[in-house]
């Protein structure tokens, strides 16, 4: 029994009202919503919602079961009218399971493009990957229409899926009036790799490698959340030293992401020196990652029940390098904030209002820069965070500058956490094994959540095993999945040339969201 997970079955007629009560206008956060095909256990299709408060370490997990059972129509009451944050989740469920959220205000395909036949639902358990592959029509153009804005002087700018820079694929359709963006319609999921079904195919243990490859620069956050879910599912305890190493490396990941992002924003304003300095500093942290773990992206470290690499072997040397990085970073950030032309471009660009962030369930930097104090490290302490004293940060304005300065605040916090762990390790106060030594075994008929606060926001995993201990359902949820729907609101009223800058300030992962 996992203490902070409260599972509850609800009746179909109460489902929407119960979700609305837990959401309570956004104060309760919708962390995760997904479906599972449990027809083999006699429970039919189930829809789960996971809510939690920022003030309380408790996840309320509602389950609506038996959807489409006994010849009934495969549909469930949509909660989007009451809980706007469920908007994308429900469209995803409709695409992947063929369960219709009745009453959804804007239901059209999200994940599956035109090349997927309309009556094939990939996450149903009775269709194999091979069978789906045979049905694909790769040459099919995706012809589902974009939102069309009509009126005098409105024109469309199509961009993508192959972009001009070295970035991920996605199609953006701008409707602009002169230089000003009136509406942005983004078509994503070009990098959809079927990860959720693939987890079921390759099994729990091999899944660690897959979780590291959901989103490149959040490799460690994803594998940590996944391993945490596996450990909670089987009741495996995590040794203190392993827990400290995970915390250290989560902060290293945040550090290189935030500093890299602050540098990348300079590319958005054409500030070449700032960009180059940010990139060099990021490179230095990546090199330190490599030195600590043998991987620049911190891959191959996590395993259920512990870690495989002891990153705390030489804390004194790591500490010296961190001090040097800190000095270089301080000079870098004061250099950026003293550049008036750079800061001018950032202020008042891409404003995301608190109301939109709250309603659509923003997470991470996007939420905290718009005044939502939501950080899993303090609200749901995991790993070593419960034993550390630190402050989380918020900014109120919600513009690009707020997101940059919030990253700067959080870099300070990450450095403090890293130092604190390294000092403790140096004083031999974090001892013991890095794993429990035994081979991890999945528990049968069991389920659990795993979660971490990654560099882009909260990362969630839900795992459920069947009677033989094989995966019945693995649901990863990257931070970017919550934040992509915010983009049209943040860019509205901005000029088209500011789009790359605004996009960089959110630093969204396409691959993580597309999964």
């Amino acid at each position, binding site marked *: 029994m996992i203490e902070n997970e409260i599972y509850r079955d609800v009746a179909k007629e109460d489902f929407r009202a119960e979700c609305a009560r837990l959401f309570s206008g956004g104060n309760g956060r919708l962390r995760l919503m997904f479906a599972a095909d449990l027809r083999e256990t006699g429970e039919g299709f189930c829809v789960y919602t996971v809510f939690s408060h920022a003030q309380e370490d408790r996840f309320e997990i509602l389950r609506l079961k038996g959807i489409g059972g006994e010849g009934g129509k495969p549909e469930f009451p949509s909660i989007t009218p009451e809980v706007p944050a469920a908007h994308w989740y429900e469209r995803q469920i409709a695409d992947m399971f063929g369960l219709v959220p009745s009453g959804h205000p804007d239901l059209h395909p999200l994940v599956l493009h035109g090349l997927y036949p309309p009556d094939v639902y*990939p996450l149903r358990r009775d269709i194999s990957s091979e069978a789906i592959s045979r049905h694909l029509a790769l040459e099919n*153009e995706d012809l589902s229409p974009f939102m069309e804005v009509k009126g005098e002087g409105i024109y469309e700018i199509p961009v993508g899926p192959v972009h001009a820079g070295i970035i*991920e694929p996605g199609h953006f359709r701008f409707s602009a009036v002169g230089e000003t963006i009136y509406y942005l319609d983004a078509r994503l999921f070009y990098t959809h790799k*079927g*990860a959720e079904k693939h987890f079921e195919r*390759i099994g729990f243990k091999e899944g660690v490698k897959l979780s590291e490859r959901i989103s490149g620069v959040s490799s460690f956050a994803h594998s940590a959340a996944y391993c945490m879910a596996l450990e909670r599912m089987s009741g495996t305890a995590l040794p203190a030293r392993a827990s400290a190493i995970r915390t250290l490396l989560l902060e290293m990941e945040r550090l290189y992401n935030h500093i890299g992002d602050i540098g990348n924003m300079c590319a958005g304003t054409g500030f070449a020196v700032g960009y180059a300095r940010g*990139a060099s500093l990021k*490179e230095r942290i990546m090199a330190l990652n490599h030195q600590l773990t043998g991987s*620049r992206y911190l891959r191959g470290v996590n395993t259920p029940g512990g870690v495989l690499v002891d990153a705390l072997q030489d804390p004194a040397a790591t500490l010296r390098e961190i001090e040097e990085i800190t000095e270089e970073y301080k000079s870098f950030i004061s250099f950026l904030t003293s550049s008036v032309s750079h800061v001018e471009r950032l202020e008042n660009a891409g404003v995301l209002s608190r109301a939109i962030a709250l309603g659509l369930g923003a997470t991470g930097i996007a939420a905290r820069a718009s005044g939502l104090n939501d950080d899993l490290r303090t609200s749901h302490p995991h790993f070593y965070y419960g034993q550390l004293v630190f402050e989380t940060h918020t900014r109120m304005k919600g513009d690009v500058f707020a997101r940059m300065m919030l990253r700067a605040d959080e870099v300070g916090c990450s450095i403090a956490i890293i130092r604190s762990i390294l000092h403790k390790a140096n004083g031999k106060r974090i001892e013991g094994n890095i794993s429990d030594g035994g081979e991890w075994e999945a528990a049968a008929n069991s389920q659990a959540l795993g979660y971490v606060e990654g560099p882009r926001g909260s990362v969630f995993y839900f795992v459920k095993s069947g009677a033989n201990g094989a995966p019945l359902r693995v649901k990863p949820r990257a931070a970017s999945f919550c934040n992509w729907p915010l983009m049209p609101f943040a860019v509205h009223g901005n000029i088209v040339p500011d789009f790359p800058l605004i996009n960089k300030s959110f630093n969204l992962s396409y691959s993580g969201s597309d999964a």
Partner: protein
Amino acid sequence: MIERIFYNIIRKKQALPRKKLPAAAPDALLLPGKKEKEVFGGAFTRSIRIRQVDAGSCNACEWECTALTNPVYDIQRFGIDFVASPRHADILLVTGPASAAMANALKKTWLATPDPKIVIACGDCARDGGIYKGSYAVTGGVDKVVPVDAFIPGCPPKPADITANIMQIVKLLSKIK
């Protein structure tokens, strides 16, 4: 003032230590049958332009490609650079397991690249799908969609390895002594 501007040159000091290139993987990089491709004879010697295409990668390979242009790796010093349009490119550097949804776009990008061109599959999933092999949503390797000349191993390959391997591949295919 003059001394300040030319500080680094006067002091013979480099602003940042540049990375030395590691040894490239030998001929194994080239896919079978591609070694004797006469069409490249002398076509690429200096000034090589790369168009990077993400065909469903997890984004780690892209960040390593981005790192190539930072002051530490500084790939431009070898006459290699990234371009925005496939029409300006000599090399298509394709990452990712070639997701089904990107197959069409990848094919079009390949068609838009003028001949002679080199297609390099970069990263383990670009070769055969990697960890995603067997998933319904990936075609299972870049060569399932466009003809591939060479492969750079790694998940993701390190920036210095990417540079060294690109140079080696160009050398082999162009028969430069």
